[in-house]
C-alpha cells in the first residue's frame, strides 16, 4: 500500500534516518527478573556466538534473543522469537528473551530509521532482517559442524538447536559448535526457508511473556526497586504551559515520610519514603501557578480555530483523474466529520526511576523509544549520551503514549536533587491531565455519484501534524504522511480523486500518536461517508462497497467473509442495526461488522462484533485474533465515551470515573476470522482501534437513521424525543 503519486512525499518506509545516536551495549533487565535481584550483566558477546545484534548462543547451548522492539501487550516478544528461531532452527522452548539496550546502529526500526516500536510495523519491518539473521547464524553453525565432520554442509540438517549428519549419524548441539562457528564469516545472503517448511511461523505458539504475568513476577518500569530508593510524585501546571510562581510547603513538610520538596520552573515534586508520603505531601502543598497565555483557553476556541482552518484549501497529497470535472458528474454530496482529543490512559501510569551521580545518569523505564529516552535525558542534563544508561522494561500499555520521553526527563531533573535513586510515579489524574493528546481533526469530503458508483472524491484532512514535531523528515512540503495515510490509501476504485492536508495545530495542547494513528481519523470519515452515500444510492452498504472493490481482491474477500459470518441482512429488533467498516493501512485487509442497539433514551448497547482479516502470513495467528479483539474494544471505548475537553486552559477529565473505559458487562461477543495468506505479513496492532468506531457509528445509523458526524457518540441526538 502507501503508493504515493507524489514522489516528493516520503513514504513511511523511506523517511530519512534521523538522529543516529552512538551507543554501547548497556546493561538491561530480563523481562521477568524478580524485584531486588542483582543487575543482569551487560550484554557481553564474550564467550558467546554473536553473529548479529539479535542472537547470542553460549557454550551451554542457551540461546538468548535480543528484542529490537518492545513488548507492550502486542505479543512481539513471541512473534519476533518465532521468526528468529524459525530460521535459526533453535529449540523454541529453550530461548530466552531480553530487552535491547538503546543503540540505534543495531536496533533501529528499518521503517523509521530510529529505535522505535509503533505504527503496527514490528513484524513487517523486521520480517526480512530477522529471517536473514536467523538463517545466517544457522548456516554458520551447520558449516562449523560440517567442517568438524569433514562432510558437505548440504548433507547436514538442523533442528531444535542441534546439527545432525544423517549419513554418519553424528550430531552436535549448538553450544558445542559456537567456537568454531564464531571464526567463520557471516554469510551475506543466506538461503531462507520455503514457507511450506515453517514449523514456528504461522503457528499459535504460547506467548513467552505471559507466565510471569500471571503470578506477579513480571517487572514493568513502575516495579523497578533499588536499594535506598526514594519515591516521588509530581504536580505539573494544571494550565498548559504554566509555570510555578510560588509554593507554600509548611503543611507538607510536617507529613511523616516526606523527605524533600523540589520546586522547579515547570513542576513541583514531593520525595518521600513511599508513594503514600509523596502523594499526601503533594496534596498538602499550596502551589500558586503563573498560568501563562493559555489561562482562558477552551475547547470551544480550539474547535472554532479548527473549523476555520478546515475551510481553507490544503496542500494536495494525492490526485488522480480530473477532480474538478469529476465533481460535476452525477449528484453531489458533502460530509464533515470531527474527532475529539483523546488521552491514552495506559493501565500503568507514567513513571520513571532515575539515579543521577556525578557525570552520569541511570534510568529505569518502560518505553517505546529507549534510544530517544537516552538522548533526551542526556541533553536535559548536559551529559554525553553514553553517560546515560537506560534499562528498559515491559510496558503496561503503550498505545503511543510511551513514544514520548517527557516522564524520563522530569524524573532525571528530580533525581538531580536527590541523593540516591528516586522512582517518580504520576497519579492517574496527572497521567490523564498531562498526556500528549490524540489531536482533534476535522475532515471534509465532497463526492459525486452516479449509477451507484462514486465518480469523484475530494477529501480534506485538517489537524495537527504530529510528525512535524516527532519525526520532522516525515513532514515535508506541508504534508504529514501520518495524517493522510488512509486517505491516500482509500481501497475503493474512484476515477477522480483528490486528497488535501491542512496543518492546523491546536493552541496550547501537545499532540501525539494514539493507537490507530492517522488512519484512525481517516477511516472514520471515509467509512461514515460511504454509508451515507450508500443510503443516497439506495443500496446495501456492503453491496455498495463491493461494487468499488473489484480491483482490490483482498479487501473484497474480507468484506464478503465478514458479510457471511456476521449474519448481515438477517432481521433485527427495532432500533438495532449492523454497520460495516473496510479499512486500509498497515498492509492488512480488514472488514468489520458491529451490531448495536439504541434505547429510547439514546443509550447504545453493543450486541456483537465480527471481523475478517487478511494480514498476510500471520506469524502467530492467535496473537492476530487477540490484537483485533483488543483493538476493537479500544476503538469502541473511544467511540462510546472518549473525549478530553478543555476549560480555562485545563483538561477537565481526571480519572476513570470521568474518562470512561468499556467494562466486562458492556463487551459483546467478538468473532475474528483470519484469512489464510502467503503474502508477507501486514500490521495488526492498530487496526481494531480503527475498525470499531465507524462500524459502530454505521450500526447506529442503520438502527436509528441518525447520521452522527462526530465522536464520541451523542446520546442526546439518538434519543427518540429528539429525533427529527
Amino acid at each position, binding site marked *: 500500500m502507501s503508493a504515493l503519486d507524489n514522489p516528493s512525499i516520503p513514504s513511511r518506509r523511506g523517511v530519512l534516518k534521523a538522529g543516529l545516536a552512538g551507543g554501547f551495549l548497556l546493561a538491561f533487565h530480563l523481562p521477568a527478573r524478580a524485584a531486588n535481584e542483582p543487575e543482569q550483566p551487560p550484554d557481553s558477546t564474550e564467550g558467546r556466538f554473536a553473529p548479529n545484534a539479535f542472537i547470542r548462543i553460549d557454550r551451554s547451548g542457551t540461546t538468548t534473543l535480543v528484542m529490537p522492539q518492545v513488548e507492550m501487550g502486542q505479543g512481539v516478544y513471541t512473534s519476533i522469537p518465532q521468526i528468529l528461531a524459525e530460521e535459526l532452527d533453535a529449540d523454541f522452548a529453550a530461548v530466552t528473551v531480553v530487552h535491547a539496550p538503546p543503540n540505534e546502529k543495531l536496533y533501529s526500526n528499518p521503517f523509521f530509521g530510529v529505535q522505535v516500536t509503533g505504527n503496527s510495523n514490528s513484524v513487517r519491518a523486521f520480517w526480512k532482517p530477522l529471517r536473514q539473521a536467523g538463517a545466517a547464524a544457522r548456516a554458520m553453525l551447520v558449516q562449523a559442524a560440517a567442517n568438524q565432520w569433514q562432510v558437505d554442509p548440504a548433507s547436514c540438517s538442523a533442528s531444535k538447536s542441534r546439527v545432525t549428519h544423517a549419513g554418519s549419524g553424528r550430531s552436535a548441539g549448538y553450544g558445542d559448535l559456537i567456537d568454531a562457528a564464531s571464526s567463520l564469516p557471516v554469510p551475506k545472503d543466506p538461503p531462507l526457508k520455503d514457507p511450506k517448511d515453517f514449523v514456528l511461523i504461522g503457528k499459535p505458539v504460547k506467548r513467552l511473556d505471559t507466565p510471569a504475568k500471571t503470578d506477579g513476577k513480571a517487572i514493568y518500569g513502575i516495579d523497578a526497586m533499588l536499594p535506598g530508593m526514594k519515591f516521588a510524585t509530581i504536580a505539573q501546571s494544571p494550565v498548559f504551559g504554566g509555570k510555578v510562581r510560588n509554593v507554600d510547603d509548611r503543611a507538607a513538610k510536617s507529613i511523616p515520610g516526606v523527605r524533600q520538596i523540589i520546586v522547579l520552573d515547570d513542576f513541583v515534586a514531593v520525595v518521600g519514603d513511599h508513594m503514600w508520603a509523596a502523594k499526601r505531601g503533594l496534596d498538602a502543598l499550596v502551589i500558586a501557578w503563573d498560568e501563562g497565555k493559555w489561562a482562558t483557553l477552551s475547547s470551544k476556541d480550539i474547535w472554532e480555530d479548527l473549523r476555520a482552518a478546515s475551510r481553507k484549501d490544503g496542500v494536495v497529497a494525492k490526485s488522480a483523474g480530473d477532480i474538478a470535472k469529476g465533481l460535476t458528474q452525477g449528484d453531489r454530496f458533502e460530509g464533515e466529520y470531527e474527532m475529539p482529543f483523546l488521552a491514552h490512559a495506559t493501565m500503568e501510569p507514567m513513571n520513571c526511576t532515575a539515579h543521577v551521580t556525578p557525570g552520569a545518569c541511570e534510568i529505569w523505564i518502560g518505553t517505546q523509544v529507549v534510544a530517544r529516552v537516552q538522548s533526551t535525558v542526556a541533553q536535559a542534563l548536559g551529559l554525553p549520551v553514553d553517560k546515560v544508561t537506560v534499562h528498559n522494561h515491559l510496558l503496561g500499555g503503550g498505545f503511543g503514549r510511551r513514544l514520548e520521553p517527557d516522564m524520563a526527563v522530569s524524573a532525571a531533573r528530580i533525581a538531580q536533587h536527590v541523593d540516591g535513586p528516586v522512582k517518580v510515579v504520576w497519579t492517574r489524574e496527572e497521567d490523564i491531565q498531562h498526556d500528549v493528546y490524540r489531536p482533534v481533526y476535522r475532515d471534509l469530503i465532497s463526492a459525486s455519484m452516479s449509477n451507484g458508483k462514486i465518480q469523484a472524491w475530494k477529501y480534506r484532512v485538517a489537524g495537527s501534524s504530529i510528525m512535524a514535531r516527532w519525526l520532522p523528515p516525515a513532514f515535508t512540503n506541508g504534508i504529514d504522511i501520518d495524517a493522510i495515510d488512509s486517505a491516500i490509501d482509500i481501497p475503493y476504485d474512484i476515477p477522480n480523486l483528490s486528497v488535501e492536508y491542512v496543518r492546523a495545530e491546536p493552541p496550547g495542547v501537545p499532540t501525539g500518536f494514539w493507537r490507530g494513528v492517522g488512519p484512525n481519523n481517516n477511516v472514520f470519515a471515509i467509512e461514515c461517508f460511504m454509508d451515507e452515500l450508500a443510503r443516497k444510492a439506495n443500496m446495501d452498504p456492503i453491496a455498495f462497497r463491493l461494487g468499488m472493490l473489484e480491483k482490490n481482491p483482498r479487501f473484497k474477500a474480507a468484506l464478503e467473509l465478514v458479510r457471511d459470518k456476521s449474519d448481515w441482512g438477517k432481521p433485527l429488533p427495532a432500533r438495532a442495526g449492523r454497520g460495516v467498516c473496510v479499512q486500509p493501512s498497515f498492509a492488512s485487509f480488514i472488514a468489520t461488522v458491529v451490531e448495536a442497539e439504541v434505547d429510547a433514551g439514546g443509550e447504545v448497547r453493543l450486541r456483537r462484533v465480527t471481523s475478517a482479516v487478511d494480514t498476510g502470513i500471520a506469524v502467530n495467528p492467535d496473537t492476530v485474533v487477540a490484537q483485533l479483539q483488543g483493538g476493537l474494544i479500544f476503538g469502541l471505548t473511544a467511540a462510546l465515551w472518549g473525549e478530553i475537553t478543555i476549560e480555562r486552559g485545563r483538561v477537565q477529565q481526571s480519572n476513570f470515573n470521568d474518562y470512561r473505559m468499556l467494562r*466486562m458487562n458492556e463487551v459483546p461477543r467478538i468473532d475474528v476470522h483470519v484469512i489464510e495468506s502467503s503474502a508477507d505479513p501486514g500490521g495488526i496492532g492498530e487496526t481494531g482501534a480503527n475498525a470499531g468506531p465507524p462500524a459502530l457509528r454505521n450500526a447506529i445509523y442503520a438502527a436509528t437513521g441518525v447520521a452522527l458526524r462526530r465522536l464520541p457518540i451523542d446520546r442526546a441526538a439518538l434519543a427518540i424525543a429528539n429525533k427529527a
Partner: protein
Amino acid sequence: MATLKINGEDRQFEAPEDMPLLWVLRDVLGLTGTKFGCGIAQCGACTVHIDGNPVRSCLLPVGNVGKRAVTTIEGIGATDAGAKVQRAWLDLEVIQCGYCQSGQIMSASALLAANPQPDDADIDAAMSGNICRCGTYVRIREAIKRAAGET
C-alpha cells in the same frame, strides 16, 4: 512495628496506619505484583484478597486489615481457585500487556472460590470493576468458564 499475614507469612513493617495497603505491599515490602492504576477504586488493578474477599487495596488503610489474611497475586497460585485461574489464563492466552491482570486474576479467583459455576451475569458482576485497556475481556470470560469447568 506492625505485622500483616501475607500469603501465609507474617511480615513486619513500619508504616502509618492510614497508608493504603497497596503502598505497603509495593513500596515497603517490595511485593510489586499488585498494581497501582487509579487510586480511587475505579480500575481494580490493585485487587487483593482479605480473608478470601476481593478488596481494592488502593483505598484500604493498612490499619484496618488487622489479623485478617492478605493474599496477593504472588500467593494466589497456592489456592485451588487461583491455580485454576492462572492455568486457564495461560491456556486461553488471555494476557496482553498484563498490567491489569494481577487484579483480574484476583477478582476471578475470588469469584470461583465463592461460586464454582458462575454464569455470565455472575461474571459481569464480579469482573466489571476491573478495567483492561488492552481489551482482553472476551478471553477473561472464556477463561473463567474454562477454570470453572476444570475438575
